[in-house]
């Protein structure tokens, strides 16, 4: 349920930037969220409708771009999405891998009028 805190932060960021731009309303918010961030879209959406009510962002559409966990093999360079219980490289079977993508948690842009 840490999505409530996350959603509150999304609202704060959107309202701050909208006000700075002299906008009256926030129409949409683009979010980029990696799978390692453990955020449920539905949960954010649920809280959003509650907390955005009565603000200039009420009714704004949340657009989620999800980035899956990606690992990079340090031996052969292959970039891959790991299986559920195994991080080894599917090409060379090496276990020397590094996280390449999946920790993103950001507001990319907002649409205002």
């Amino acid at each position: 349920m840490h999505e409530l805190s996350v959603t509150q932060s999304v609202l704060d960021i959107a309202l701050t930037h909208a006000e700075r731009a002299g906008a009256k309303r926030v129409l949409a918010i683009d979010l980029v969220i990696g799978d390692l961030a453990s955020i449920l879209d539905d949960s954010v959406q649920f809280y959003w409708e509650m907390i955005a009510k009565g603000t200039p962002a009420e009714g704004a559409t949340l657009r989620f771009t999800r980035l899956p966990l990606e690992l990079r093999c340090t031996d052969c360079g292959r970039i891959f999405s790991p299986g559920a219980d195994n991080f080894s490289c599917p090409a060379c079977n090496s276990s020397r891998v590094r996280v390449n993508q999946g920790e993103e948690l950001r507001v990319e842009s907002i649409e205002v009028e």
Partner: protein
Amino acid sequence: MPARIQIVENILSANDELAARNRAAFDRAGVLALNLMASPGAGKTSLILRTLEALRGRVRLGVIEGDLASSIDTDRARAAGIPAFQINTGGQCHLDAVMVQAAMHELPLAQLDVVIIENVGNLVCPIEFRLGSHLSVLIASIPEGDDKPYKYPSAYRGVQALVVNKVDLLPYVPFRMDYFREGVEALNPGLVTFPLSCRTGEGLAAWADWLVARVTENRSPAAH
């Protein structure tokens, strides 16, 4: 006319900024702050009490306890002679920088070397929220199983040490240490790891020595 505004801002940047202020306040007091995370029952409070015993006379320890409700852990810490402050999160699943800011000033920071912040028992929610600690430490315990790095990968990222507690149960629980360590290594290469048992005391000395070394580093002028 609708217009698009590029932002590209971390969603939790407000919390991050406050965490940086907490960190500065810990620095001014010369205190090393440690964010201790684990699932419920992994041994967070046991490790704190064991660490207190091991460090007595060497390092002055204080504790901030985060719990959904109750003050059981704080009572145990105070009974052991540690200055302790309880944060009841009222159901919130993680600590954040605001809660720590309020709590840290309830401790006699000037008389402490280390503050351990015991986070809410949870392997998901606390991970994203910086508190202003210098170090984050994760406890995994043997009965939780060897697949936890694969199931909760984010918990293993961004921590500076890993304690593997309850190693005295290894003879009784199927736990492939190699498989476990492979997952950890992928997520956090070279992570310093302390296999230990808070029950038997095995392995605790290495953990305590490591912590003392971090305190010494923190005290030296080069650290700031």
